[in-house]
């Protein structure tokens, strides 16, 4: 998450530069033709221990191809998908059509004040699944997909279900960091969490997620909500006013050995607000649940680059004047695009 001040700085400087250029120039937009793009397979899945195997098979598309209006156009239901486990052929997967069209929201249209846009989205969950009941994946299994079709170059990818990390200890530092929201000046408080773990061998990445069990006495004892688990923001880096983006943490420094992860979590809701403190309103925290995810190296790299691309991507004309160096998202699919990743996790619950 980027702090609002940077969005503000970005916007004001951008406007300034854009204005400077526009007043000095006659800008004309001209359409530019692009060469045709030969489509290639796109394979996507994230496998984990104890969950069924599936694979999303689609094709890539040209930059100017209008696929958003009909997502199903890029599916390849008649592809031949072979599944291998630990080098042995396991199954020929079958296509299951389970997509639906849903209206998500209405949106105003920039430049057309009297109009709004009906944004619809295909919930395309059509995918390939095993043709028969198979044992669920376990840690250490290596799965390989080989996909072919007469109209496309064949593609393949493989991944190994990682072993979960063994959590050795968790140390919590209460209120280790404070900062204030730029918008409202309210205080945020963070606890630091130091996790010692035994890392499974092989290059991996880590993601840590948390949930808080708390009750909220805001409306008085008579109306106290029942304690429940609630997501909480876990961030990896705290530097000045800026929260980190929870990019996967590589295990390069402790691969296969004992390592430490340091993350932070933010108290939920009102606890730091001056008005709340004055009025004695304070959430009551009971437990903190940590989930430590181990990602395959390819998956961790993919996720890192994906987040970086999203953060740096500016739309339309903004990208001309404040361009970022393009982020290339790597693929572990031979002969195609996409990501075939796998993960596993360990859980620990702290009493607060």
């Amino acid at each position: 998450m980027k702090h609002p001040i940077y969005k503000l700085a970005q916007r004001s400087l951008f406007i300034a530069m854009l204005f400077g250029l526009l007043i000095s120039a006659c800008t004309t937009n001209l359409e530019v033709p692009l060469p045709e793009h030969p489509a290639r397979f796109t394979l996507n899945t994230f496998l984990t221990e104890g969950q069924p195997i599936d694979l999303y098979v689609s094709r890539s598309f040209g930059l100017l191809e209008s696929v958003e209006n009909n997502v199903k156009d890029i599916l390849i239901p008649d592809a031949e998908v072979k599944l291998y486990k630990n080098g042995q052929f396991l199954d020929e997967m079958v296509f299951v059509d389970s997509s639906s069209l849903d209206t998500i929201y209405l949106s105003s249209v920039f430049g057309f004040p009297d109009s709004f846009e009906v944004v619809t989205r295909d919930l395309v969950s059509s995918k390939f699944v095993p043709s028969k009941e198979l044992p669920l994946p376990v840690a250490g299994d290596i799965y390989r997909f080989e996909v072919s079709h007469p109209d496309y170059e064949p593609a393949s990818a493989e991944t190994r279900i990682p072993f979960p990390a063994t959590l050795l200890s968790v140390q919590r530092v209460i209120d280790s960091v404070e900062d204030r929201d730029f918008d409202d000046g309210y205080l945020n408080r963070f606890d630091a969490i130091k996790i010692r773990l035994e890392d499974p061998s092989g290059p991996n990445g880590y993601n840590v997620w948390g949930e808080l069990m708390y009750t909220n006495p805001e409306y008085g004892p008579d109306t106290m909500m029942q304690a429940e688990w609630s997501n909480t923001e876990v961030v990896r880096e705290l530097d000045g006013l800026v929260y980190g983006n929870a990019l996967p943490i590589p295990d390069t420094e402790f691969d296969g050995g004992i390592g430490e992860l340091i993350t932070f979590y933010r108290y939920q809701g009102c606890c730091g607000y001056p008005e709340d403190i004055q009025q004695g309103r304070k959430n009551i925290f009971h437990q903190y649940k940590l989930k430590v995810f181990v990602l395959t190296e390819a998956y961790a790299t993919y996720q890192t680059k994906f987040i970086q691309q999203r953060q740096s991507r500016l739309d339309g004309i903004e990208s001309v004047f404040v361009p970022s160096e393009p982020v290339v998202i790597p693929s572990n699919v031979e002969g195609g695009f996409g990501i075939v990743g796998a993960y596993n996790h360990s859980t620990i619950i702290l009493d607060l």
Partner: protein
Amino acid sequence: MNHKLRIRCAMLSFLCCLCFLSTFSQSSFTIQGYVRDGSNGEFLINASVADLKSKKGVITNNYGFFSLRLPADSVYLTIAYAGFQVQQYRFLLNQDTTIKINLSPYSLDEVEILAEEVEREVDNTQMSAINVPIQQVKLMPALLGEVDVIKAIQMLPGVQSGSEGSSGLYVRGGGPDQNLVLLDGVPLYYVSHLGGFFSVFNADALSSVKLYKGGFPARFGGRLSSILDVRMKEGNLNQFETEGSIGIISSKISVQGPINKGKTAFIISGRRSYLDLLSRPIAIIASQASTNGTERVDVGYNFYDLNGKINHVFSDKDRLYLSMYAGNDRLLANGRFRYDQDEEEKFSLGLGWGNRMGALRWNHVYGNNLFSNVSATFSQYQLRTKTDGSASFPEGDSIYTESFELEYISRVRDWGLKVDFDYYPSPAHDIKFGLHSTLHRFEPGTVGIQSQAGTAKVDTNIIAKLDRPLESSIYLEDNIKIGQRFSANVGVHGTHYLINDQSTFSVQPRVSARFLLSKDVAVKASYVQMNQFLHLLTNSGAGLPIDLWVPATEKVPSQFAWQVAGGVSASILDDQLDLSVEGYYKEMTGLVTFKEGNNFFFGGLDGGSWEETVETDGTGTTYGAEFLLQKKRGKTTGWLGYTLAWNWRQFDNINGGLRYPYKYDRRHDISLVVSHKISDRVSVAGTWVFGTGNAISLPSGGYANITDPLNPDIYFFGGRGTPNEDLYLPFRQLHVDLQSYGEGSQFFNEGRNSFRMQSYHRMDLGINFTKEKKWGERTWTFGIYNVYSRRNPFAYYLDQDRERNGNVFNGYTERKPVLKKIALFPIIPSFSYQFKFKHK
């Protein structure tokens, strides 16, 4: 042998040579003095001073000084400078002699007849260097009539301009940060106005401009790719002169003259644009008229340059100069929106950037053959933006007020001390040596934030990492002549760089040689090494003021380059044409570039160090050939330039570690510049340029992705997602929304900078009408930029065209992706009025 020992040995050897040379036969005597323009007392740089009898000669240095040691004999001294009448002296040299030489300029109608003194490339030892003809530049057609030296330099082979209209310089494959731009010997960091469409150099204030693309003499250092040595006029010692011009977007005026005739002179030159004088009242009136006075918007932009110089002649041996330059761009926007009595919003935006430069210089002549120049210099580049806003509205019985103020400052400051010597032991040696030391202060971004919302307040300063490196250099070079055919410039430049108690020392050898095959044909070769201890963080390359200068540090080491060049120069058709063909090969290391996904906003401002935002240890390889045919004499003058070039970059973490073309890898670059004097009163000029399109990274297409269960940035169920497989799995889906910030699918491309923009070409024409008036001289200049209105690409971007589908909610449901091109300048006519007053 380590570096330090080697450089000490080299220095010792050279000093021994100096001692030997200075004990030259006492039957020789020295002729020394200054060569000046007799009409205004300005010193003439690179004037030729030669004894026709002994066939030995020298050229004047940057301060018009020369020293020539000759045997005691009769001397036939000839002094020549392009555009001036030759002066000759015959005398018996029997003692050390000082002479003052004032050359007279040719009158206009003499130029065609007496043009023997036109500079010939074959005569220069130096290769890959070009003197930019300022008078010719003034006649060339220019964008909106703004005469621009940098734009003229961009038309030379080996030099590229970057984007349309940009005043960035890309020399022999180098980056925009690799040019050392010296104004009176002081580095300037940012030389553009209006986002790069104009340079900061006011041609009326300049006396000479020289560009070195390679074969750098040892006295220069600190940049890899080029040296642009710009010298300001010194001021007329004899009489007052006023000249200026009135153009479409700016006007300028220069005044120079004696304060104490023959002893002290000054020049002051100013230029200001006046877009804001028009735009501000128009914006205010238009906004108030269209909203019945509830809104008031005020926008404006201006830039200015102010050059000044004073020089004082204490004696034949001592002179003092004080130079200064100040230039700034300022963009402002203010708005006030009053919705009712108690509800109002205001905002104010100011963005300013510019340079300040000052130099105090003392010239002194020791004895007959040692010239010294001691300078104390200051240079600053600063970008500053300030944005504030407030809103007030009723809340219950009271008025609720919110306000914020944001200030951002990025600054580079240099304080320098330079001591340079020119030593002339004999006509066969012209030795230069000296010491430079510069204390840099880099402040690559300080943010100040103040905000108030009701009773809550924030008042914070985020100060970026401050660095104060000390860069010191020592150099020694000798312009050697052996016989009539061979000459060489041999030297060494050593740099010591100290930052955060870490020091680096580099030794950079420089060699440039010429061999005359005949009177009119010479072969030349050069080899140089260069080090650069600062970097420019830039995405756009468009010369935007947000580009950040940062120092070399332990984490981000210095840049290094070596370049070898060879070529042939020929004077053909009885010196009517000068032909030069050069080939070069350059390798660069230590290059930096933003990491993938980083830029000015998404990098250093994030509160972290800028060092974390860049890829380091990049390499660059660039090679090519340059062809230049110049016509410097006659009624028709100009040049034809052609460059064939390749330009590559390679970083471990970019493009999979594979080398990729630099953005300004331009295979073919052609420029044609022609001026023709129809009569004393009318001249015409035209230019035509062609360049291969820039290499850019453009996606080739996209592919779908699926919901990532562990991506923290994916929102679903109204909150930041937690990987809960039970919730997540039924909703895992394919995404193909290329434009969305949400879970959109991904672009792919065929590699960094793998897409070529369309080629660039443009023709400009101009005509000048000059007339003598009782009060002086006036010139009307009319020009047409982009005569055939070529829509040259400035940038491409991906957009969506919406197609009306009016059945549902009056909405737009179909979106079609399109790639769009921005073309900035169609055909643009311009005019300017120039005047020059005579003062008696």
